[in-house]
């Protein structure tokens, strides 16, 4: 079966302004709204569009995390994913461990494409897709802004610092998504009801034969330093004077 595996992460919602806890132990997460990582939502949307165009037969969505993550998996099912896999753990999953878990699922599911966001908006690591591609020994196309799937290869436009780069990658491959790839659909109520009946399988990391190692030690979390309050000017002429005073303009 032509299958696309989409990895999603549950993160603090994009619109929440996170606050650092005064004791430096992390950010305050009590009562915050959780959502699918926006880049992963774009990955899922792209997978669904490929399926709707006939380029794939099944979209499987997976996440790693505590039981609460099933809410995000249900949202993904409501968007249109066919089934969901939940690898349940309360541990923090580092990118290399996430890549290992994904590799095991890739071996089970044999997808032609693994789609995931370029980074999660909480830890901002931007690593998991590339690490999976390395462990799987398959091509990677990161920061995708356009994706065309052919029988044995994919043409991917990537948003790179220099502009847009086009790559051809043989399938199967890992593609990580950037913001401008698509705009994810809104979920409608009937879809949410239907999603409750879609299959969601739960499994444990050790069933996949992966040990959850923690190799990066978090010592401290701080608020970023703030800039000193600036001055206000009323006219363009005053602005030029102020810039000259600061030595920015000659």
């Amino acid at each position, binding site marked *: 079966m032509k299958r696309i595996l989409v990895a999603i992460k549950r993160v603090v919602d994009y619109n929440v*302004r*996170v606050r*650092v806890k005064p004791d430096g132990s992390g*950010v305050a997460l009590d009562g915050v709204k959780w959502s699918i990582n926006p880049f992963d939502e774009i990955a899922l949307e792209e997978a669904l569009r490929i399926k709707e165009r006939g380029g794939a037969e099944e979209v499987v969505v997976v996440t790693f995390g505590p039981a609460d993550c099933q809410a995000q998996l249900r949202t993904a099912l409501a968007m249109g994913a066919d089934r969901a896999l939940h690898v349940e753990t309360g541990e923090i999953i580092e*990118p*290399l461990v996430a890549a290992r878990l994904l590799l095991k699922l890739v071996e089970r599911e044999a997808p032609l494409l693994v789609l995931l966001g370029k980074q999660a*908006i*909480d830890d*901002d*690591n*931007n*690593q*998991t897709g*590339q*690490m*999976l*591609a*390395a*462990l799987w*020994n398959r*091509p990677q196309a*990161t*920061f995708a*802004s356009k994706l065309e799937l052919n029988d044995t290869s994919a*043409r991917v436009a*990537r*948003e*790179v*610092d*220099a*502009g847009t780069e*086009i*790559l*051809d*990658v*043989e399938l199967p491959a890992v593609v990580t998504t950037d*913001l*401008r790839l698509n705009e994810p659909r809104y979920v409608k109520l009937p879809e949410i009801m239907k999603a409750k009946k879609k299959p969601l399988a739960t499994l444990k990391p050790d069933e996949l034969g992966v040990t959850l190692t923690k*190799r*990066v*030690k*978090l*010592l401290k*979390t*701080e*608020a*970023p330093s703030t*800039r000193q309050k*600036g001055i*206000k*000017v*009323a*006219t*363009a*002429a005053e*602005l030029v004077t*102020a*810039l000259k005073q600061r030595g*920015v*303009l000659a």
Partner: protein
Amino acid sequence: MSRILIVAEHANGKLSHATARCVRCASQLPQPEITIAVFATDGAVALEAAKIEGVAKVLNISAPAHAHALAATLAPPLAEIARAGYTHVFGPSTTFGKDLMPRVAALLDVPQLSDIMAVESERRFRRPVYAGNAIITVEVDEPLIVATVRVASFQTAGATAAAAPVEVVTPSAVLPTHTRFVEVSAPGGDRPDLQSAARVISGGRALGSAENFQLLYKLADKLGAAVGASRAAVDSGFAPNDLQVGQTGKIIAPELYIAIGISGAIQHLTGIKDARTIVAINKDSEAPIFEIADIGLVGDLFKVLPELEALL
């Protein structure tokens, strides 16, 4: 002693400034011995890298397959070189380094640190998370530490007349052929590079249209500045996406940053907060951009811009 391997970023036969910024970061490790690996089709860029101050040695890996930087092609030989006794492997936190370094780390079976902005010790670093709304201090207890360096946090290392020796190496790693470069299109033209420019002028949604966005270029020409855009301006189609400044676009640290008609979403502020001087021109006096601006001007940009242009 720290033995640091830095992978050079270059394009069109020229070394990127990002490489010298990685050197500056690496030089803050205890007793640094810095080696730069240059993957290219010839030795020209390696000679350029050898002139960065603080570099002990340059490794030149020449092959036709390295005509374009492909992570899948670069990772196996880079991992092979890294195994030869290095303590750190650094790459810039640009799209080049972000693409490559995790692939290298996975091949080496070690975690990777993203976006390091400060060196605390040999194994301890600081990096931003939550789009820069929090800074974490992390420690890695590994014989080999792989990281990307947040280039905006480090000045470029200087140049030296006494060039470091260049050694030609030929790793034995088999290069995969499953990934092919087709083309890269750079709509920027011959303007200063946004990422490395000393002065940047950015426009936001308040410019209202792609035509109005062109007004910025006249001012940019007067100042010798690069042009950037907020995500709102890019999403509205006023500017191409490679101009986007912010956490999800380019993170920059110019001497002068002028934000015109940009309200200052958190993700935009994260991308500019290391700029030396921030100027904001906006008609909304409550706009968040004024909270971080060194010089703020509350006014109509369509009136202020021509005035400013006439004064420069």
